[in-house]
């Protein structure tokens, strides 16, 4: 028999039995835990104990030291731009040209060995179609006051196509360093302004470099991109600083041709007579060759052509110009002849003047309140407007486009409601038109 004291409920059974129950976990649990604690401790910053920060520091120091020790022995970097006449017919021409370059021939002190090595250097040159675009992509520090190089720069080339680099800057830089002669092939980069040139610098142990672009700009990037805005000849100099305290430099010439500007006007914009000649006024600068596209399929290469359009429609007139140096530009006028279009259209409601008939004469200025029913139009030569009531009775007729309907019939104001209009006539180019529609006479 169970007594009341012996019987306890479920809750108490579990609480009494298990609340303070002690179970011995496996010994492995402890060792795993301690390993995890150790790992955590290792990752935690603690100045008094070996941890990841110390190890990291040691590793970084080691790598730095190794790099400094070994990097000095190899100097194989290259620079050289090359010859790329800007291609004008494509909008965005960019190409890579690989040029073999003779690596600096230099003498090491205490050794008479002459090092020769050959490697390649590539440059990407791209001509940009739009100036605004090129400015947007300008990434490096830019100096607007560009200073074109003295024109005698080419004289420093020797006859065999090599020249010795000796700028004052470089001399300063090399003082205290090994004297070295650094020869490069004087490849030129040629293009039209604004000219974007991408320079490449083969990565070497020499980890810092400085590009001087000759227009007052410079960059410390390895592979900078530079945009030459102003025409001229620029000497681009690359100086490389090596960890072994040797420094090298190399240069190349970038020639930027002026870009022509295409600009024109349509002289006879108001001309609306059919078979009228449309004349074009050419204001282009720096250009030698011209190509007109009149938008109706015909072209011309005259300086200031005139053209007869068979039909005035929305057409885009384009002028492309080419300079003697091969630089191009173009200008386009969209919907050039939209001012010459013929049309006629009517409103679908008007409110007649209740004071009395106005006679129907209107001008676009005096009829802002829409008191007279009349069309808006352009280039109409013949015109006849008729108004009918709903019963089909003609109540108004006008053969003068300047005479509209004032809403009166025989001196009486017509009833508000819908009336039918019919217009027929010809445009000035001879094209006839017939239009029918309805107009609602509103009550004031």
């Amino acid at each position, binding site marked *: 028999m169970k007594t009341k004291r012996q019987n306890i409920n479920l809750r108490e059974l579990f609480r009494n039995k298990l*609340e303070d129950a*002690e179970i011995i976990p496996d010994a492995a649990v402890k060792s795993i835990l301690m390993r995890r604690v150790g790992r955590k401790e290792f990752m935690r910053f603690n100045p008094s104990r070996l941890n990841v920060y110390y190890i990291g520091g040691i590793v970084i120091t080691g790598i730095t030291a190794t790099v400094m020790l070994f990097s000095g022995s190899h100097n194989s970097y290259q620079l050289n731009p090359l010859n790329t006449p800007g291609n004008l017919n494509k909008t965005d021409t960019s190409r890579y040209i690989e040029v073999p370059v003779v690596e600096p021939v230099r003498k090491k002190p205490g050794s008479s060995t002459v090092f020769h090595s050959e490697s390649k250097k590539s440059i990407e040159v791209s001509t940009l179609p739009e100036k605004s675009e090129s400015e947007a992509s300008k990434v490096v520090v830019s100096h607007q006051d560009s200073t074109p190089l003295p024109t005698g720069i080419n004289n420093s080339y020797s006859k065999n196509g090599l020249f010795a680099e000796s700028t004052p800057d470089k001399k300063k830089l090399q003082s205290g360093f090994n004297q070295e002669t650094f020869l490069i092939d004087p490849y030129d980069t040629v293009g039209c302004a604004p000219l974007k040139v991408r320079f490449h610098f083969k990565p070497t142990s020499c980890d810092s470099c400085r590009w001087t672009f000759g227009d007052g700009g410079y960059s410390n990037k390895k592979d900078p991109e530079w945009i030459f805005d102003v025409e001229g000849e620029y000497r681009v100099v690359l100086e490389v600083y090596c960890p072994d305290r040797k420094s090298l430099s190399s240069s190349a010439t970038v020639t930027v041709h002026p870009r022509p500007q295409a600009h024109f006007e349509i002289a006879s914009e108001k001309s609306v007579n059919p078979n009228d000649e449309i004349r074009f006024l050419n204001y282009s600068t720096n250009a030698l060759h011209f190509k007109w596209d009149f938008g109706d399929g015909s072209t011309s290469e005259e300086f200031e052509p005139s053209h007869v359009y068979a039909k005035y429609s929305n057409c885009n007139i384009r002028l492309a110009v080419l300079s003697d140096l091969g630089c191009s530009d173009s200008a386009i006028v969209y919907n050039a002849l939209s001012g010459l279009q013929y049309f006629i259209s009517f409103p679908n409601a008007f409110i007649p003047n209740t004071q009395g008939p106005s006679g129907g004469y209107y001008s676009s200025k005096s009829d802002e309140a829409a008191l007279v029913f009349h069309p808006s139009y352009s280039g109409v030569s013949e015109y006849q407007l008729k108004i009918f009531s709903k019963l089909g009775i003609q109540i108004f007729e006008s053969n003068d486009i300047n005479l509209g309907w004032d809403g009166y019939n025989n001196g009486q104001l017509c009833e508000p409601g819908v009336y039918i209009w019919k217009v027929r006539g010809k445009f000035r180019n001879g094209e006839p038109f017939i239009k029918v529609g309805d107009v609602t006479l509103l009550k004031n």
Partner: protein
Amino acid sequence: MMSDRQIIELCAKHDRKAQQVLYDKYSRLLFGVCLRYATDKAEAEDILQDSFLKIFHNIKDFTGSGSFIGWLRKVAVNTAITHYHKNLKYRYHVDIEEYVSVETGITSFEEDYFTSDELYKVLNELPTGYRMVFNLYAVEGYKHKEIAEMLGIDTNTSKSQYSRAKAVIRYKLEKLGKLKSSYSENG
């Protein structure tokens, strides 16, 4: 033998030796707690390890007010709840409706009739949700409202899960009881 206070101070300085002492001293008690919340021993060991990592990391925040054991126990329970949430989506939810329909006439049990091992076994076999609620309410003594907050469930869910857990446990204990008595009769 170090006192709790010394252990706490040294553990706050990440002293490895003190951490081991702390583990040796309290791991059995906390393992008992963890085992109640786990499906099996392996999970209980996971919870225990995570609990101790939390304890070692946060021991500097233990203010000293209140019992240290109570704090340790609370960390272990919270870790178990975290585990429950983490594993929620992986668990296979057992349909327990068959248990619930069973009539249960007996409302009390003799305390010494079941060993704690048997009770652990019964708990471990419970559906996880039931086990959490039952442990927190019956053993730890939380209120249904608190449990609902901790587990992110409704208060009524907590209540109904508790009563269902009780029914299941009763059913299992009765079965166990019959089994045992038949053994003793035969033996």
